[in-house]
């Protein structure tokens, strides 16, 4: 049991290390010779190898062993990091992960075969080092330091790395300006080979001569020399030279100080240099008693070598964090929730007791509890960067596969959100990124032809906004062609042609979130995206988030994912209706409208029995929470109407509640299985007084109440307005939109409308062959438009009829329509003239085809005398 836990611990830790390994690999492709990165990579594999030997995973061990050797060669500069090698390293990481997966799933290493990978690593290493493909040079223990350090190659590698360091060291790099570096390199290699006791033709003079100029002309002094020695020490440390060897080497290096600085004092012979145990009287590097005690932790080397210190601190940070089971945190969170409740009760109790010390204690309890709550919340927060670290690799692999050049830019990876949410968005984000790479960004040739840079850019951005985390994924690819999506959706039968005709561009683009569409290969190839976007949306919906898509053809696509900071605690508005409290997640909340008794009678109008409210000129459908939940109204003292304006999936609607209480942070708790099927509730929470309040599922409510389409159309009209701005010359006209028959969408200019009236059917009277109605002391004829357009249609018998009163010179006529839909101010262009009687033409209003009614024509048709000189008519009637 314990062994098992240890293994899982090891796997979890190694996986984290592998994540960093992958990240380092990506960075390494940019800076191929960075010793820090190389060391990091090496260390990861080395650590895994070390641990797996302990557990007895032979396969993993042989894989990591050969990986370690390979990386060792790479680190020493024997193998240059070519793309081939990078691929092998990525494969190494994948293979190790595969083993880990088997370990966690089956409890053993699984039967993977990595001989191919191992072979290629060994081969590449052997090619580079010229050594047989097994065994490590460090293994044997020859006499001289030279051989112990790995012979001439090791020395060469050391010098190369050492020089790279020296040249980057601001303190001393200026000495190398204009110097023949190759010459210096060779000299240095010769010198070290000699100093470490290897075969050499070094003769001491070289060192003096080389540096003479520097000392005399450029003021090379002891501090510079120390800097060089520091760099040398760091180099050796990075090369994983054992501590005692570094000590020895450092001593040797120090011993040439006088040579380098061209000092004459106590010029030792060559042999003495190598053997001297009496280190010169210099600073911190001086080894204690000449014994090889100068270890990497030696004060001077550690303290002043910049990169060394940084790494030390990093390691310290790693040590200061521990791994905690998320379940434990959940439990802790629950306990804190209970504590908060208990605290609330104590506070209530204390306020009714006038005991000063008790009050004080409970105040203290209050503060501590709040702090504790915050602290526990924070333990669950993690930077989003954790999952982003995988994306460079995905982008790299995919773009290589597709033959594209893509640069991934990330911003805001430190944005924190709840652990469970991070897990939940991982897959959707990966999916979006894959889509962007696969379908969004074009191949280099196409991009060049379009005048874009060959390298596509994929931007990943995250930030906090209004208590939510926003993640934006932007590509500069081809964008999505809504018309192709439309065709595809039509051909798949996902939408009807009527629906399609009514859809705005934005709605069409949103079609990619439809389930059936996503599997269609052709759509994704042509339009850009779509594989499994429905899954993306479902997953994000599940955690209370939203996805928006904005696309601009030819310029790219942006997906905006909004997710709550945490699932556990959300800001909510508490309302009460029917005697119970309900919580409305603030994500859905737009605004609150309060109408006093007088206003509310007038302000809430009905269209065919559907209540609406005019919110700044737009019709807002109204849902009554009481009736939706089937609870009886609380009759007591209902003076005002409270409308909570909500947004569900880009549609707005108003929810009438009895009382608006307060905004509060609530702890979301799931509902039991028995209540899962009920639309309208997404969970429950415990209020400050310990009672339970249900959390309203706004989406569910909207769906349940079938919030009407008006607002959707409104949104489309808004977007249409913008796109129309630069269109052909148009007239801005206010139109009354109404419905005749099942689908007939008609309009007339509002200027021709006198009034809109509703009559009871029982008030209709007959006069001759016509239906008439008494209206304001006049008898006006009724013209049933449905009957007018299509006399075969049966006029439906409703209790009331909606009419448009048309008045011309004091004479009125009432046109009977089925439903008044909207009043729209829009630029209209008559698209098509029709020969149908009564129709002037067709216009597109709110993206919907709408007939423009020829009011005069109709009236004339029905009542030829209507437009005759009214004075005469009047005189006749008088």
């Amino acid at each position, binding site marked *: 049991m314990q062994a098992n836990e240890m293994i899982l611990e090891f796997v979890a830790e190694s996986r984290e290390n592998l994540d960093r390994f992958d990240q380092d690999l990506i960075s390494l492709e940019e800076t191929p010779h960075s010793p820090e990165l190389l060391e990091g990579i090496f260390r990861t594999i080395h650590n895994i190898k070390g641990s797996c030997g302990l557990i007895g995973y032979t396969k993993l061990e042989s894989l990591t062993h050969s990986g370690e050797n390979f990386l060792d060669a790479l680190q020493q500069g024997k193998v240059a990091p070519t793309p081939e090698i990078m691929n092998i390293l990525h494969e190494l990481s994948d293979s190790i992960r595969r083993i880990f997966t088997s370990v966690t799933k089956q409890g053993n290493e699984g039967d993977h075969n990595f001989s191919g990978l191992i072979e290629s690593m060994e081969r590449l290493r052997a090619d580079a080092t010229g050594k047989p493909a097994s065994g490590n040079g460090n293994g044997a223990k020859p006499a001289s330091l030279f051989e112990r350090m790995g012979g001439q190659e090791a020395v060469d590698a050391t010098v190369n790395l050492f020089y790279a360091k020296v040249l980057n060291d601001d303190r001393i790099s200026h000495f190398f300006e204009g110097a023949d570096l190759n010459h210096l390199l060779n000299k240095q290699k010769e010198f070290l080979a000699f100093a470490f006791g290897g075969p050499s033709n070094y003769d001491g003079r070289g060192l003096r001569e080389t540096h003479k100029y520097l000392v005399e002309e450029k003021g090379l002094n002891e501090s510079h020399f120390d800097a060089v020695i520091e760099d040398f020490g760091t180099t050796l440390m990075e090369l994983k030279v054992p501590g005692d060897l570094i000590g020895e080497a450092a001593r040797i290096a120090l011993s040439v100080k006088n040579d380098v600085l061209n000092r004459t004092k106590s010029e030792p012979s060559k042999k003495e240099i190598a053997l001297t145990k009496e280190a010169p009287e210099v600073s911190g590097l001086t080894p204690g008693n000449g014994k090889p005690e100068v270890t990497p932790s030696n004060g001077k080397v550690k303290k002043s070598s910049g990169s060394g210190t940084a790494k030390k601190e990093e390691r310290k940070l790693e040590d200061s964090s521990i791994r905690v089971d998320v379940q434990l945190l959940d439990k802790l969170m*629950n*306990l804190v*929730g*209970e504590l908060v*409740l208990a605290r609330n009760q104590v506070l209530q109790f204390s306020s009714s007791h006038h005991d000063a010390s008790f009050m004080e204690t409970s105040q203290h309890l209050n503060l501590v509890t709040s702090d504790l709550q915050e602290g526990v919340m924070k333990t669950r927060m993690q930077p989003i960067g954790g999952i982003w670290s995988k994306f460079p690799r995905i982008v790299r692999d995919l773009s290589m596969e597709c033959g594209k050049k893509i640069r991934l830019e990330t911003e805001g990876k430190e944005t924190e959100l709840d652990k469970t949410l991070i897990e939940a968005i991982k897959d959707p984000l990966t999916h979006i990124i894959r889509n962007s790479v696969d379908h969004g960004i074009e191949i280099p040739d196409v991009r060049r032809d379009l005048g874009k840079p060959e390298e596509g850019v994929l931007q990943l951005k995250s930030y906090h906004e209004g208590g939510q985390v926003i993640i934006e994924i932007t590509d500069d690819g081809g964008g999505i062609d809504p018309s192709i999506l439309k065709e595809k959706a039509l051909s798949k039968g996902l939408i009807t042609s009527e629906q399609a005709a009514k859809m705005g561009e934005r709605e069409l683009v949103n079609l990619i979130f439809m389930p059936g569409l996503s599997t269609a290969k052709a759509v994704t190839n042509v339009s850009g995206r779509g594989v499994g976007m429905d899954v993306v949306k479902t997953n994000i919906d599940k955690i209370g988030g939203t996805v928006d898509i904005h696309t601009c053809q030819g310029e790219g696509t942006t997906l905006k994912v909004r997710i709550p900071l945490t699932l556990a605690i959300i800001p909510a508005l508490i309302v009460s209706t*029917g005697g*119970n409290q309900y919580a409305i997640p603030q994500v859905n909340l737009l605004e609150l409208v309060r109408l006093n008794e007088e206003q509310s009678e007038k302000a809430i109008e009905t269209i065919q029995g559907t209540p609406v409210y005019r919110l700044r000129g737009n019709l807002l459908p109204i849902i009554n929470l009481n009736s939706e*939940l*089937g*609870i009886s109204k609380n009759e007591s003292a209902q003076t005002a109407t409270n409308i909570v304006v909500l947004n569900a999936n880009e549609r707005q609607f108003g929810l009438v509640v009895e009382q608006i209480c307060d905004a509060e942070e609530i702890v979301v*708790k*799931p*509902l*039991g*299985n*028995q*209540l899962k*099927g*009920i*639309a*309208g*509730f997404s969970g*429950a*929470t*415990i209020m400050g007084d*310990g*009672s*339970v*309040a*249900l959390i309203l599922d706004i989406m569910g409510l909207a769906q349940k109440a079938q919030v009407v389409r008006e607002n959707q159309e409104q949104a489309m009209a808004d977007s249409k307005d913008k796109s129309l701005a630069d269109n052909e010359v148009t007239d801005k006209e206010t139109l009354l939109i109404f419905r005749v028959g099942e689908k007939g969408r008609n309009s007339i200019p509002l200027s021709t409308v006198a009034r809109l009236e509703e009559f009871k059917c029982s008030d209709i009277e007959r006069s001759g062959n016509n239906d008439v109605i008494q209206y304001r002391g006049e008898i006006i004829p009724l013209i049933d438009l449905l009957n007018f357009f299509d006399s075969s249609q049966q006029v439906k018998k409703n209790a009331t009829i909606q009419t448009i009163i048309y008045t011309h010179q004091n004479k009125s006529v009432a046109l009977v329509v089925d439903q008044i839909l909207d009043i729209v101010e829009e630029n209209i262009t008559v698209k098509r003239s029709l020969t149908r009687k009564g129709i002037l033409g067709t216009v597109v209003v709110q993206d919907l085809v709408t007939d423009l009614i020829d009011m005069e024509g109709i009236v004339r048709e029905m009542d030829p005398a209507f437009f005759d000189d009214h004075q005469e008519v009047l005189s006749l009637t008088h």
Partner: protein
Amino acid sequence: MNDQKQFCTFYLEDRFFGVEVERVQEVFRYQEMTQVPLAPSVVRGLINLRGQIITAIDLRRRLGMKDLPGDKKPMNVVIRTDDDVVSLLVDRIGDVLEVGDEALEPPPETLDDVARQLIHGVYKLKDALLLTIDTKKTLDISS
């Protein structure tokens, strides 16, 4: 060898019921509940049980019995299932009894339909009949 089982017992009217004791998390007095609109009528509401929200199911209604008359308050028997914690509302709580398998019989065929579904068996005790409840079926109110 007879299997001995322990049952947490309770009453609905004069009927004597039992639930396997391992299933019962705790028993507590009546507590205020929050009603859930739109929920099936057997769900009486939600209870805050030390920070955990549990659903209260009216066992009388579940078994097709009449509601508890007047102002009498039911008791809560909290049942723990694999993935859920639910409270069963009962009239009053009895003792924990240990009974042997030899006293077990299947419920009589003449029992009404709903009850026969939910009653797992009948233990013939000396002075009473103990009806044991099939918790899984009882809590699955969708059926």
